[in-house]
Every structure is written in structure tokens, then in C-alpha cells.
């Protein structure tokens, strides 16, 4: 009896368990079903979307690319190039072109300066320290063929040839340099990133010293000896060396400061063994005065000084202390150098140059109907020959002019004005102001005004009637 009761209890328990298991199974299977169904729905929904995106022009199967080549027959040759742009290779012409219509040239699907960014978005790192202007402007086709080319990365030209097609001056200098830097010859990309650099200026792959010490070992005895025991690995190599090659041994810049050439570093700096070896013995112009005393005395005896000469940087406001590409160890060519501070003058020149270009184009287009009038720009200013009129250090004259007489100064180029011009000179009083005499700058402004003949007024009548008031209309 007891046995049969036990059996019955076990059976009941088994039934309960089985019911639970069945319920769980049912729940599991219904979940799986749901999962499966949603997967199917998602796939069904996503497929047309993705397909639609891929095949947005509803091309017939197999028609991609092939269809385009039916008309663009010559393009087949292009595709034989070894380096083909991936979308071109996979026949996805419509990735970039709209086969029907477009607001952009070449039926491009987007602004040509932005279209590459669709796929190549991260080409310029965020917070990059320098970037290539053409990249920022979206002018990728300046370097790359968007379809295919003979060169890696579909570049238009191989290696340095491509870079030097824009950087012509650099190309010439590299070719002509007597002492060459081998990494430059092997390729600009040894040191530079073509698009942007997250680490350094000038698209350099790394900071200058870090880049140099990859090849040059600063602890080698020869290196130490060459640098007179100074710990230059903590300095700036480009202060003396031209990384692109030069005509001086050791690829020093072409113009070297005599103490550097003679390894006389201690003339200006503390000893190499000092805790502060690069510290100069004196500050500002006082350091340079030691050797350049005659020039300094001459400068300080003038009424007007070019103030940056006596500020903390002193002579180094304009000159390199060690070596330079430019004569007189200037930091840059005169136009760029003066333009660093006198932006107001130099920026105007760009505007005037553009005005002159436009006028010349209009004259050419008119086939003789329009005659070219006077220049709006003064060529010495435009060419950056600031020193034709101004003394860079000091002068007794306003504007640091090299000659107290404007007539004499202007007459060095405009010789005719000394014998055939409106009465000018120290004896001719300006009718507008008894303290002024009629000088060249009474009617012209030497840096340009945007009007013809450097006239400060829009018309010549406006100018002349300033004094000759009886003719004012």
C-alpha cells in the first residue's frame, strides 16, 4: 500500500516537472520563433535599403560600371593602370557620379572639393599641428587621379616630381644643392606627411629634433665633436642646417654667421659645460654690439630707431643668429619679413596685384578699345624691395626713409621728375598748409591707395582741386 502511494506521488511529481519543462520549452521556442521572425523582418527591410543605397539608380544586375564603359570606351585604357581607385575597380561609378544630372561638373554627385571626404574622412587628424593647403581646400585631384594612375595611391606623378610641380623653388634648390641630404632625394615623404601632421609644423612626421635623431646619433663621438660638445640634441637642428641640402658642407644654410662657421659658439653662448650652455652672454642687441659695434653706434646716433631692434629679441627680430638661406642672415625674404609686422602695407599689395591683373585682362579682352592706365601698385613695394626707400635699423628721417628729400629719393628711380614735373621741392609751399612743401607724397601715397598713379583720391580732378580750388566743379 505504502509502495503504491509512493509510486503515485512520484508520478504526480513527474507530471508537475514535465508540465514545467514543457512550459519552459514552449517559452523558449516562442522566443526563438520571435527572434527568427524579427531577424527575417529586419533582413527583409534592410536588404532593399542597403541594396537601394548600393544600387540607387536601379541598375540592371551586372550593369554597374559595365554600362558606363559602353559609352566611355576610352576609359577602358585607364583601367589598365596598375593603381585603380577602389570604387572604379569595383565598377561603382555612381559612388561619385550621378548618371542623370548634377549641379557639379563631370556629373559629380557632390561638390568636387568635398566628395572625397565621403569615404576618406579622417585624412586630416583632429587638432593637427599643420595641414597641407590643397587638402584643406579639398583639392585632392591636384595630387591624385580619381580613377587610376601608374603611381601608388593613384598619384599623378611619382615621388618628389609630384611635390616639386608646386614647390618649384624647393625643387630647384634641392636639385642645385651641392651637398645633398639623402632622405630628401629618396622622397619628401621620408620626413613629411602629405596630408596633415598631428605632431609638428610643416607637415613633418615628428618634431624636428626627434626626426633628425632617427638617423643622426647625437651621442656618437663625431657628432659631439662637430657640435663643439654642445648638447644640441636639445636644440633646433634647423637653426643651422638646411634639411633640404645646401652649398655648404654639413648642409649648413648657405649664409653662416662667422662665429658658427668657426665653431666659436662661446663668443655668444656660455660654455658647453655650463648648466645653461645655450644661454647667451648678454641680452638683446647688447650681445651683437660686441662685434657689430660700428654699425650699432651708427644706428644709435640716428634720430629714429626701428624699435624692434631694441626690444627683448633685438637683432633676432629680423636676423637668424646661426645661419640662414637669406643674405645678411635675414629670417626670411624682405617682403615676408617686413610683412610679418607691417601687415597693413603688405596685405594691401595682394589686393592691388589682383586689381592690376584684372585690368590687364580687361585691356587684353578689349582688343585695343581700352587702354591700360597707370599702375595702382608701386612695384618696389609689391616686389618687397622695402629697403629701396627705408633704412631697416635707423634713420634721421620719418618713416625711416633713406633720404631726407622725397624728391631725391623718388628721383633715384623716377629720374624725369627732377626736370619735368609739377613744381615740387623744398621751396614750393603747399597751398593747403604753410608748414608743408610740395613733395611727391603731397599727391601720391607710396604704398598705393587702390587708385591709379598712387593717387589718394578717386580721380585726378579730385586731387588737383585740393589746391587749385578755382577749378572745382
Amino acid at each position, binding site marked *: 500500500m505504502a509502495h503504491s502511494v509512493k509510486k503515485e506521488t512520484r508520478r504526480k511529481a513527474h507530471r508537475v516537472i514535465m508540465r514545467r519543462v514543457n512550459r519552459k520549452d514552449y517559452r523558449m521556442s516562442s522566443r526563438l520563433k520571435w527572434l527568427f521572425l524579427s531577424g527575417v523582418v529586419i533582413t527583409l527591410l534592410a536588404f532593399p535599403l542597403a541594396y537601394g543605397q548600393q544600387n540607387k539608380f536601379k541598375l540592371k544586375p551586372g550593369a554597374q560600371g559595365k554600362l558606363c564603359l559602353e559609352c566611355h570606351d576610352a576609359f577602358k585604357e585607364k583601367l589598365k593602370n596598375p593603381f585603380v581607385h577602389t570604387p572604379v575597380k569595383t565598377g561603382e561609378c555612381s559612388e561619385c557620379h550621378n548618371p542623370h544630372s548634377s549641379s557639379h561638373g563631370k556629373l559629380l554627385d557632390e561638390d568636387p572639393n568635398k566628395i572625397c571626404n565621403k569615404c576618406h574622412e579622417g585624412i586630416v587628424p583632429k587638432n593637427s599641428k599643420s595641414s597641407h593647403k590643397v587638402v584643406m581646400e579639398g583639392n585632392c585631384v591636384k595630387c591624385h587621379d580619381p580613377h587610376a594612375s601608374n603611381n601608388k595611391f593613384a598619384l599623378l606623378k611619382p615621388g618628389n616630381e609630384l611635390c616639386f610641380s608646386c614647390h618649384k623653388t624647393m625643387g630647384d634648390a634641392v636639385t642645385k644643392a651641392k651637398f645633398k641630404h639623402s632622405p630628401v632625394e629618396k622622397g619628401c615623404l621620408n620626413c613629411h606627411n602629405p596630408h596633415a601632421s598631428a605632431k609638428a609644423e610643416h607637415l613633418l612626421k615628428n618634431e624636428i629634433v626627434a626626426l633628425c635623431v632617427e638617423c643622426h646619433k647625437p651621442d656618437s663621438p663625431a657628432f659631439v665633436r662637430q657640435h663643439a660638445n654642445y648638447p644640441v640634441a636639445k636644440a633646433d637642428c634647423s637653426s643651422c642646417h638646411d634639411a633640404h641640402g645646401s652649398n655648404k658642407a654639413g648642409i649648413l644654410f648657405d649664409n653662416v654667421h662667422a662665429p658658427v662657421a668657426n665653431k666659436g659658439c662661446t663668443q655668444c653662448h656660455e660654455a658647453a659645460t655650463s648648466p645653461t650652455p645655450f644661454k647667451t652672454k648678454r*641680452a*638683446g642687441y*647688447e650681445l651683437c654690439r660686441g662685434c657689430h659695434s660700428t654699425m650699432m653706434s651708427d644706428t644709435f*646716433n*640716428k*634720430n*629714429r*630707431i626701428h*624699435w*624692434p631692434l*631694441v*626690444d*627683448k629679441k633685438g637683432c633676432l627680430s629680423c636676423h637668424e643668429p646661426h645661419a640662414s638661406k637669406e643674405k645678411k642672415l635675414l629670417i626670411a625674404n624682405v617682403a615676408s619679413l617686413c610683412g*610679418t*609686422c*607691417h*601687415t*597693413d*602695407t603688405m596685405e594691401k599689395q595682394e589686393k592691388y596685384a589682383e586689381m592690376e591683373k584684372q585690368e590687364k585682362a580687361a585691356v587684353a579682352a578689349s582688343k585695343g578699345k581700352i587702354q591700360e592706365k597707370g599702375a595702382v601698385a608701386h612695384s618696389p613695394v609689391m616686389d618687397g624691395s622695402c629697403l629701396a626707400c627705408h633704412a631697416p635699423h635707423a634713420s634721421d628721417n*620719418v618713416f625711416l626713409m633713406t633720404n631726407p628729400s622725397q624728391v631725391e629719393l623718388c628721383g633715384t628711380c623716377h629720374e624725369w621728375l627732377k626736370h619735368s614735373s609739377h613744381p615740387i621741392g623744398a621751396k614750393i609751399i*603747399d597751398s*593747403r*598748409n*604753410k*608748414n*608743408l612743401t610740395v613733395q611727391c607724397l*603731397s599727391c601720391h601715397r607710396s604704398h598705393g591707395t587702390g587708385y591709379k598713379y598712387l593717387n*589718394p583720391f578717386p580721380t585726378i580732378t579730385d586731387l588737383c582741386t*585740393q589746391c587749385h580750388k578755382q577749378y572745382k566743379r
Partner: protein
Amino acid sequence: MRVLLKILLALAVLSLPMKSFGAETAKLRYSQSIYFDDRGGGLKQPEGVACNDKSVLIVGDTGNGRLLRYTVQDKNIQAGNEVKIPQLPYPIRVQMNSKGEIFGLDGKQRRIVRLSPTGEFKDYVNPEGLPSPSSFIPRSFKIDPTDRFYILDIFSERVLVTGPDGKYQRHITFPKSYGFFSDLAVDPKGGVLLIDSVRKMVFAAQKDSKEFTLLTGTLKQYANFPTYITTDNRGMIYVVDENGSGIVILGQDGSFLGRQLNAGWNEGLLYYPSQMCINEKGEVFIADRGNSRVQIFTLVK
């Protein structure tokens, strides 16, 4: 109708405070020009002007290497006595203190010279007890109402503050990044302003502050090459745009309020102006260097 009138009246009354708290602008109205000294000799490229409330006007007649002392009272200009001393052969900036003593910065020697109110040489202003570096080159200087000197030392990149006796009191270091400072000003609250000619910006240090901060963004839109800065008794800032031949007016907070005057030769126009001085009466004196004259304007607010 009455209701409408009442509403209009209420609006008019409410708008009054708005007007009074709104940004104040100032205009320069031409008054007259000074061309000659007391003997009829013409000015030559004057770069300095200093004025005070006792109607004294000192002109740094730079091109002639002298100072001229005028009195200007109710549009009446008197004298123009010449002060010519060997210690000040090329005065490019002039100032006066509360005692009427005259101070001139010499462009050739780059030293500040102290003269008595009547123009006799007294001494050079040499700050005493300077912390290292001891070298200094004054590009400009100002004197506050308590006769303290504020010297723009471009050699050691700082503004030196000394007592009336020339004893060092403190200094304010130049900001880390700047182009070139041509001038400084002390506002009525004792704050110091610097004008950066290259970056065309104004920096400011509050009274007793040890550092400068930017007061304005670039003024490139309004000025070509600003070289002089001053304030009026209410703290409005006036910047002389030397290459642009105009005056840029800024609020105390550096906000742009307007640009006055233009380049030219006729009266009321400027040609490479240099120093500017505003007195309590609202008379404005501008050394119009390129036109070899001093022009007087009235400040209209």
C-alpha cells in the same frame, strides 16, 4: 486717444534709462589748429602733445628738436614759447605731472627727461632699485594723477611702475604672446592698457594686477597700425591709428564704439598722427605729424 497718449508717455519715460545706460559714443568736432610758435616759426613733424586742466599745452615739435609751451583758453591760443635743450634733441612723447613739470621721451637717446614747468632741465627719469634685469628701454611712458610713472620697457618686456621720485614700486610683465607694444595708458581706475601695433589688440591689467589679459579682439577691421592709446576721464579708450590716420574709440570693456577722422591734408583730417591728449574740458589735442601741425578737437558725447 487719451489711453494711447498715456501709453506713449509711459513708453517714453521707460525708455529714458535705456538711453542713459546704452553704449556711449563720442565724436570729435574740429575746433582749430596750431601751426606756429610765438615767433611765427612753423611746426615740423610734431609727435608729442601733453595737456592739463590749467590750460597748458606742451607740443613736442620733433622735427625742430624742441618743445613749445602754449596756453589754450576758450579757443584762445597764447604764446608758444620755445624750450630747446640739448638733453632732449628729438622729443617723441611728452607728458606733464600734477605739478606742471614737463617730461619728454627722447627718440634718439631713448631716455625720459624731466623739465621744470618753465622748461629748465632738471634730471633724467632713471628708475631706482629695479629688479633684474636692470636694463630697460622706454618706448613710451605715462604719469597718473598721483605722479607715479608707468614706463613701457620693451627691452625687458614689462611695464615699470615707479613713484614720483623714480623709485621702483612694481612691474607688470608683458603677456606671453604679443606682436609689438608701442604705447600704454593708465585708466581712471588705475588699470594699465597696452596697445599692440602688430596684432592690433588692446591688453589690460586691472589696478595692482600682475598680469595683462586681452581686452579686445583684433582691431584690424578698424585700424591699420595703432601706435598710441589714451583714455578720457570716464575711462573711454582712444587709440591713434597712425598708418590709417584715424582715431578708434573703445568702451571701458574694449567694445568698439566708433572710428573718427580720416586721412587728408585739410583741417579736420589727419596725416600720420602721433600723440593725443584729452583734458577735463573735453578738448582733444592731436599731434598731426604728417601735416606739421597740432589739431584741436572738442569731444562731443
